[in-house]
């Protein structure tokens, strides 16, 4: 771009923009006939590229004034270990692997109940204007502050109290995330001998890998990861044999509650075991499998070019959907979460990535570009959820309390909504994927697995491969969810020790076994409780926990964007604060509206307090309300409703107090002539 200033250079981009607009027009306006998935893919990619070329460049040069001569933390503190100037493509891979998780895969699948259109539009618009801006901004801020974490930056720029509140918020989010992720696993593995066998098999496989890398051939990640993946594929095959055998399949059939206890026990044990034994090797497996599956899915969609069977819009945009309750605004935005904006990325962008950035100007490629890639993964998940029959989609994702418990009833209810499906068709799907039932498999993962299996099965045809690919997809999701549960429990334990240490100093000692066990148990108990209530509560589960997760995640993004706005004011770049202010305001509107609706909505299916009220009144009158079956279950419902209401209240408290401090600091620094931000002083890149 250096000496090519001719306006002609914009022409290819203009063409690309027109292509994107046309594709988006087809996606948005074609009604009544199935459209091809390729339209969505082309629209997304074209808009991403144009946004990257122009908007992110604008942010880089005008708003942030990225300076290639300024030494990054990696250059200043180069130690070959934590701080290493890294080739930007290699760092892109690292950053992407760190931000991509279950969120962008599950959110769009759940959002598909309103049709593919609203979700797709928000994925594209949200990432370009909010999500990628947030990741880029936090990466920039952290790079200019020697790689400091989000919490540290909030404390330094806004004060000690908001810093502590932000830390507390992060801990809450961690707990919710662990509970909701674990719930997805439970929903996918309940009564599925094939699934649970393959997931259990990952533990000995990981231990074997861990021992190998520790003692047999230390540090050989590559060779043992290949062996590990082969063993995993073998375990999927063996799982199929087990599911086919009547006795073995009985031995490996567990109810949701049994799997919950296994997960809780596992979470506790895994978090205190040495990292090299289980956590690290399984992380290697899950990372490589994750990247491999994402690439395979992209290739699969391009080759098969499937038609979308889900309508563009369903009648559930009015908020009466069976998968989750609530209207398009704000709950669609809360449900999509990670693929459009994810607060969690603020933790990664202020974690390892800024310590590896070789030049400040590459923050654009890594931060903005990496998030575009994540959004593309979410687009693929949306495609995968929309290529399966809508009737199957709703049968899988609706709770039994709404659609009934057997195939005939479910098929009838779902068909009555206009998504024609027969009981035989539902059974045929279950048989295809090697399961006994597809009913009540909420949580997104199984639906996504069916979609992935359909796509991969078309690319690589063969007898009965559908069941293999389904369990491959389940394993792929369960694997990185378990890794997150394990790593999250560990991280949560340190956070808890940090928080409790302020009151009981002895608990702060991370090397003490007692403190370690107490904090781990506390952490496991918290997410385990939420998980358990999600499993046993007939009304609970995904439709309660996922909105809580979405609210907390978007709230964290709001905090990160408020920090960005405050720092822009302090840097005296207030001309440009709309870049972070507009998405921050939007996220605050979404999260607080959603929070208040969840708390105070008079409809018991939506509002927690109304639900508690309805059941309390019935309980006093000695009645038992369906789907509760006895007095104890009634009490569960009431207690859980209050727990969820408390959590929502805490989130609102966190977000409003950060807003208060952001306003306070922002207003007071608005008029000052001098820069008051706490940037590390300029240091030039040493001459090579």
């Amino acid at each position, binding site marked *: 771009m250096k000496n090519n200033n001719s306006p002609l250079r914009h022409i290819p981009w203009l063409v690309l923009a027109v292509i994107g607009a046309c594709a988006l027009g087809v996606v948005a306006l074609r009604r009544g006939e199935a459209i091809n998935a390729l339209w969505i893919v082309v629209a997304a990619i074209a808009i991403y590229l144009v946004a990257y070329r122009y908007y992110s460049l604008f942010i880089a040069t005008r708003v942030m004034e990225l300076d290639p001569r300024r030494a990054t933390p990696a250059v200043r503190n*180069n130690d*070959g*270990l*934590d701080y*290493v100037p*890294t*080739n930007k*493509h*290699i*760092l892109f*891979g*690292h950053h992407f*692997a*760190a*931000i*991509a*998780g*279950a*969120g962008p895969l599950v959110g769009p699948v759940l959002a598909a109940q309103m049709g593919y259109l609203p979700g797709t539009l928000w994925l594209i618009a949200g990432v370009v204007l909010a999500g990628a801006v947030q990741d880029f901004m936090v990466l920039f801020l952290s790079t200019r502050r020697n790689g400091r974490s989000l919490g540290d930056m909030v404390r330094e720029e806004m004060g000690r109290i908001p810093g502590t509140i932000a830390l507390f918020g992060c801990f809450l989010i*961690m707990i919710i*995330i662990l509970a909701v*992720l674990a719930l997805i696993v439970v929903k996918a593995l309940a009564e599925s001998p094939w699934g649970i066998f393959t997931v259990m098999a990952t533990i000995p496989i990981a231990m074997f890998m861990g021992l190998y*890398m*520790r003692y047999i051939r*230390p*540090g050989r*990640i*590559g060779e043992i990861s290949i062996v590990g993946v082969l063993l995993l594929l073998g375990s999927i095959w063996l799982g199929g044999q087990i599911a086919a055998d009547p006795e073995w399949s009985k031995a490996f059939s567990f109810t949701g509650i049994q799997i919950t206890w296994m997960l809780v026990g596992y979470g506790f044990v895994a978090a205190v075991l040495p*990292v*090299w034994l289980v*956590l*690290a090797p399984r*992380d*290697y497996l899950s*990372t*490589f499998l994750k*990247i491999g599956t994402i690439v395979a899915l992209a290739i699969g969609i391009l080759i098969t070019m499937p038609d979308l069977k889900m309508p563009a819009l369903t009648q559930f945009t009015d908020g009466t959907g069976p998968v989750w309750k609530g209207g398009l605004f704000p709950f669609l935005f809360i449900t999509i*979460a*990670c693929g459009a904006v*994810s607060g*969690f*990325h603020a*933790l*990664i962008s202020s*974690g*390892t990535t800024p310590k*590896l950035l070789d030049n400040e100007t590459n923050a654009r490629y890594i931060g903005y570009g990496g998030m575009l890639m994540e959004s593309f993964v979410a687009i693929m998940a949306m495609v995968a959820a929309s290529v399966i029959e809508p009737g199957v989609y709703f049968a899988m994702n609706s709770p039994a309390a709404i659609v009934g418990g057997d195939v005939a009833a479910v098929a009838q209810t779902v068909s009555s909504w206009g998504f024609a499906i027969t009981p035989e068709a539902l059974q045929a799907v279950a048989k295809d994927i090697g399961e006994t039932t597809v009913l009540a498999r909420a949580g997104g993962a199984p639906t996504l697995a069916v979609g992935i299996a359909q796509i991969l099965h078309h690319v690589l045809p063969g007898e009965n491969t559908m069941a293999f690919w389904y369990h491959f997809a389940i394993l792929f999701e369960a694997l990185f969810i378990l*890794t*997150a549960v394990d*790593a*999250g429990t*560990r*991280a949560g334990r*340190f*956070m808890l*020790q*940090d928080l409790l240490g302020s009151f009981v100093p002895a608990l702060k000692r*991370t090397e003490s076994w007692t403190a370690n066990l107490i904090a781990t148990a506390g952490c496991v108990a918290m997410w385990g409780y939420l998980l358990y209530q999600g499993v046993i509560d007939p009304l609970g589960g995904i439709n309660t926990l996922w909105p809580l*997760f979405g609210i907390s*995640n978007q709230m964290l993004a709001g905090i990160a964007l408020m920090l960005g706005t405050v720092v822009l004011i302090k840097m005296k770049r207030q001309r440009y604060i709309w870049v972070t202010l507009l998405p921050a305001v939007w996220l605050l509107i979404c999260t607080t509206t959603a929070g208040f609706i969840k708390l105070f909505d008079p409809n018991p299916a939506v509002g927690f307090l109304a639900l508690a009220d309805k059941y309390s009144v019935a309980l006093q009158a000695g009645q038992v309300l369906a789907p509760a079956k006895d007095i104890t279950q009634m009490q569960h419902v009431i207690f859980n409703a209050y727990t969820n209401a408390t959590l929502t209240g805490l989130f609102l408290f966190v977000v409003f107090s950060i807003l208060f401090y952001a306003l306070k600091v922002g207003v007071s620094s608005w008029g000052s002539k001098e820069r008051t931000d706490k940037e590390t002083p300029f240091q030039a890149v040493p001459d090579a």
Partner: protein
Amino acid sequence: MFNDLSRLGKYLGQAARLMVGMPDYDNYVEHMQTKHPDKPVMTYEEFFRERQEARYGGGKGSPRCC
């Protein structure tokens, strides 16, 4: 051509290792030799364990994403 391919392979290997938190060992050795010739250099095994512990062990480990 083969040179390019082997370079690409090296890059992919580095990228895959960094994805699981393992920076380039050769780069570390080079850094130690040029900048800190007086300090001991970890062997690959020590380096591997040190990095693994740093990624997962300490409180500062990066939390995993949703």
